[in-house]
């Protein structure tokens, strides 16, 4: 039975929808707000902001995070900046332009109304953050500085050196701390959500495990907000924090919430390559390096082999034997070609055996010419801190030896399906930030993730959640409801059965195996065969996991292997959903690239110069929709419901940055 996915987009002109919606939304009077309780899972930009703001409004909030402090959520790692259509630079920016850039950046696979609201709210976010004391970069006149970022021709990105995410998160965390101090928010750090409790079709609570004592307990509320981030770690290696996981979202999915567009995953081209199979994490290097660095590999396999073996160094390769493949293939954009193209091209040359990292997976990012042209000092002023970071990790000096880079999984645009109110198809279950699917379409532009997380948390949810709460009797369901006990038992059984396996293989070994499989089959380039193969292999790995995983210790104390096992067990199911979606979407768009769907020299669009061979080919007539998946059973194909995307204000065009 297809789901009833009502997007609840308000009527009226695009630029009045949000204002009108707020006007038409239900209100709850201050005295009554105190009676309503809300659970917020996750304490990053979306969750932390939502928890703090809902408490400011008067709701009783419980906030949960798996880290030891809400300040450590992975929003903290964002480097670049946050977009806002302030037009402080007087360079022609506007809410509409930010809206348009974001829609186009998302390859026309997101909702117009949501994205426009995001652009509108961006203005308030910057005001709010500055008032909280976020130390954005400033000019000598004391006013805020901006820089430009990928996919935009205006300077609209606000930044705090290379740690914008940390500064925004600290502002948000401090707002949360203020509310914890007043008693409005009860904070549960080192606590992981293991299940969603649905009572009479409404989300009314969660089951959590205290990661220190192992105690499993129930928490009931009038509404639940998930702000639990993305699922990039399904690939094992990604730029995500080690603890990032899909558990909360996937548990909600199993309880009925639709998962939308899981195949939209973003691969970032400039990360430090993997150096061995012990590698646990990939580190992102800011994309800005491509402004001055030239990307190349040797022209021949043989030379690449000798570099890998350490017999030759980059400097030994003559100019004629260097293939600056991006400059060769995309003469107009060169090294600044879009993220997906740069990523795929790197994979291509490495697949040809021309990779230069010891593992074969890595290409050079060379600053030799830039240093010769502009001098050591100029390059150091621009990229000094990034060069330092690289040297810290690799032990090589990028001023002398070119950097080695390779693409890595970075962000996931897909997520739980939500309507305009950020409510999923399970009434009462709201989803914010990276965990939902709503604003980035098939690809996210730089500096937009922070914007979306904070928009959802500070401004959207606090306004829209009342639409649901006003229909509810506060406190109508408590943790004494039998459904909580039932879910608790299920959770305990699952933990127990995992611990009882006592097999031979560590949790990480399964996670690594799954990650490699997905990277090959559902990574930068996807094909029907590859996806099919992955879909065949995933159940085998999952079966072995449930037969042969070894989790030492018990569930009654701090047990990191058990925590990881729960997350990996969910990834082993979620991976199938990801591949099903990728297989179903017979087009290429944004972060989803299907080998079968790319422009070739024979296409008219290539002939008349609109695009180039190898670029992503969308099929708007068939796939201009959101794919929302409903869980059936583990190992069974999920059922698909489509929410069609209407574009009234922008024209669907071929995404081109030429």
């Amino acid at each position, binding site marked *: 039975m297809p789901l009833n996915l009502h997007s609840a987009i308000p009527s009226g002109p695009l630029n009045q929808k949000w204002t009108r919606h707020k006007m038409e939304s239900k209100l709850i009077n201050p005295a009554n707000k105190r009676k309503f309780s809300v659970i917020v899972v996750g304490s990053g930009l979306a969750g932390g902001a939502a928890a703090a703001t809902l408490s400011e409004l008067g709701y009783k909030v419980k906030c949960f995070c798996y880290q030891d402090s809400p*300040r450590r959520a992975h929003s903290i790692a964002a480097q670049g900046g946050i977009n806002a259509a302030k037009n402080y630079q007087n360079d022609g920016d506007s809410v509409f332009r930010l809206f348009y850039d974001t829609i186009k950046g998302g390859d026309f696979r997101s909702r117009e109304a949501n994205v426009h609201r995001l652009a509108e709210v961006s203005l308030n976010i910057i005001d709010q953050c*500055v008032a*909280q004391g976020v130390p954005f970069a400033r000019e000598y006149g004391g006013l805020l500085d901006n820089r430009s970022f990928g996919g935009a021709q205006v300077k609209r990105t606000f930044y705090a050196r290379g740690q914008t995410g940390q500064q925004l998160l600290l502002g948000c965390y401090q707002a949360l701390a203020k509310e914890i101090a007043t008693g409005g928010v009860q904070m549960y750090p080192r606590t992981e959500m293991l299940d969603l409790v649905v009572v009479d079709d409404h989300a009314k609570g969660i089951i959590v495990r205290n990661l220190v004592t192992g105690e499993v307990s129930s928490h009931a509320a009038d509404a639940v907000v998930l702000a639990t981030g993305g699922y990039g770690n399904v690939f094992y290696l990604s730029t995500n924090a080690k603890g990032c996981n899909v558990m909360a979202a996937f548990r909600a999915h199993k309880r009925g919430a639709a998962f939308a567009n899981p195949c939209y995953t973003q691969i970032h081209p400039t990360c430090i390559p993997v150096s*061995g199979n012990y590698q646990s994490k990939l*580190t992102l290097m800011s994309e800005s390096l491509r402004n001055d660095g030239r990307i190349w590999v040797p022209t021949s396999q043989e030379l690449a082999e000798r570099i890998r073996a350490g017999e030759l160094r980059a400097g030994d390769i003559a100019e004629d034997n260097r293939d600056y493949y991006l400059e060769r293939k995309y003469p107009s954009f060169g090294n600044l070609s879009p993220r997906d193209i740069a990523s795929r091209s790197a994979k291509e040359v490495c697949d040809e055996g021309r990779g230069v990292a010891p593992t074969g997976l890595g290409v050079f990012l060379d600053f030799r010419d830039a240093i010769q042209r502009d001098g050591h000092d100029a390059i150091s002023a621009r990229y000094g801190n990034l060069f330092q970071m690289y040297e810290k990790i690799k032990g090589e000096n990028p001023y002398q030896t070119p950097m080695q880079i390779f693409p890595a999984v970075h962000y996931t645009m897909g997520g739980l399906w939500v309507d305009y109110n950020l409510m999923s198809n399970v009434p009462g279950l709201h989803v914010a930030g990276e965990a939902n699917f709503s604003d980035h379409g098939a690809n996210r532009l730089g500096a937009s993730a922070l914007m979306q997380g904070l928009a959802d948390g500070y401004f959207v949810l606090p306004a829209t959640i009342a639409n649901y709460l006003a229909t509810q009797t506060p406190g109508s369901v408590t943790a004494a409801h039998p459904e909580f006990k039932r879910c608790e038992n299920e959770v305990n059984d699952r933990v127990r059965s995992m611990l009882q396996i006592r097999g031979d293989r560590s949790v990480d070994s399964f996670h690594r195996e799954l990650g490699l499989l997905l990277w090959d089959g559902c990574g930068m380039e996807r094909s029907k065969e590859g996806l099919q193969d992955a879909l065949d292999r995933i159940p085998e790995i999952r079966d072995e996991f449930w037969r042969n995983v070894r989790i*030492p210790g018990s569930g009654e104390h701090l047990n990191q292997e058990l925590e990881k096992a729960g997350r990996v067990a969910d990834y082993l199911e979620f991976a199938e959903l990801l591949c099903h979606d990728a297989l179903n979407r017979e087009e290429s768009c944004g972060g989803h690239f299907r080998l079968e769907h790319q422009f070739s020299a024979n296409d008219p669009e290539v002939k008349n110069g609109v695009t180039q061979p190898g670029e992503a080919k969308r099929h708007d007539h068939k796939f201009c929709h959101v794919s929302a998946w409903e869980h059936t059973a583990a190992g069974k194909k999920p059922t698909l419901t489509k929410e069609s995307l209407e574009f009234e204000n922008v024209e669907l065009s071929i995404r081109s940055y030429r």
Partner: protein
Amino acid sequence: MNLTLKVWRQENRKASGRMETYHAKDIPQEASFLEMLDIVNERIISDGGDPIHFDHDCREGICGMCSLTINGIPHGPKRATTTCQLHMRHFQDGETIWIEPFHAKAFPVLKDLIVDRTAFDRVIEAGGFISVRAGSAVDANAIPIPKQDADLAFEAAACIGCGACVAACKNASAMLFVSAKASHLNHLPQGEPEKTRRVLSMVARMDSEGFGNCTNQYECVAVCPKSIPADNIAKLNRDYALATMKEALL
């Protein structure tokens, strides 16, 4: 490379801990310190043992979750580097490495190398914020802030709250953390209205959490992965004196 590890093992908060010896064989030089522990743990698990528990998350030096006192130095021998960004090439083959948790009474050990740093959160809850409701802010450019002040605020705000300063201090003082948090906000005009209250209550909370007192030895600065300067401590001392005078006399 082959290493001998002396690692602090402790069942739980109440148990007493001990140093245990492990042999880390065939560790790649390119591995990070935490990846070295991952490898050791894989082997412990396959030998049927209980892996060494340690805190970690982002593994890119910004979340502040990783800790570890390595050869007596929080975050190990390399300056301005978190444990997760410390790589094994900074150690010698055959070396013996001592790995202990961030020790301080205010940071009780939860298990092995994992400590409870929620005392820091409680200090922030005492006043480490600017009270501004979402939606009530004036335009971001309405209050110009001299670049110098903004830079000082940023320098203090770079603190990642890892707790190395406490772990390194012979007195387990939290002054570098608390002062960085306070001066980030105190440097800004937005932080001015609550300055007196903030300083007094954050310091009171810091004291009641059982941290020691600063004796101006700056071990904290030496181990701080973000090189937060001791100027912040001087500023907190000054702000505290002024706040007391204001509170007592005005």
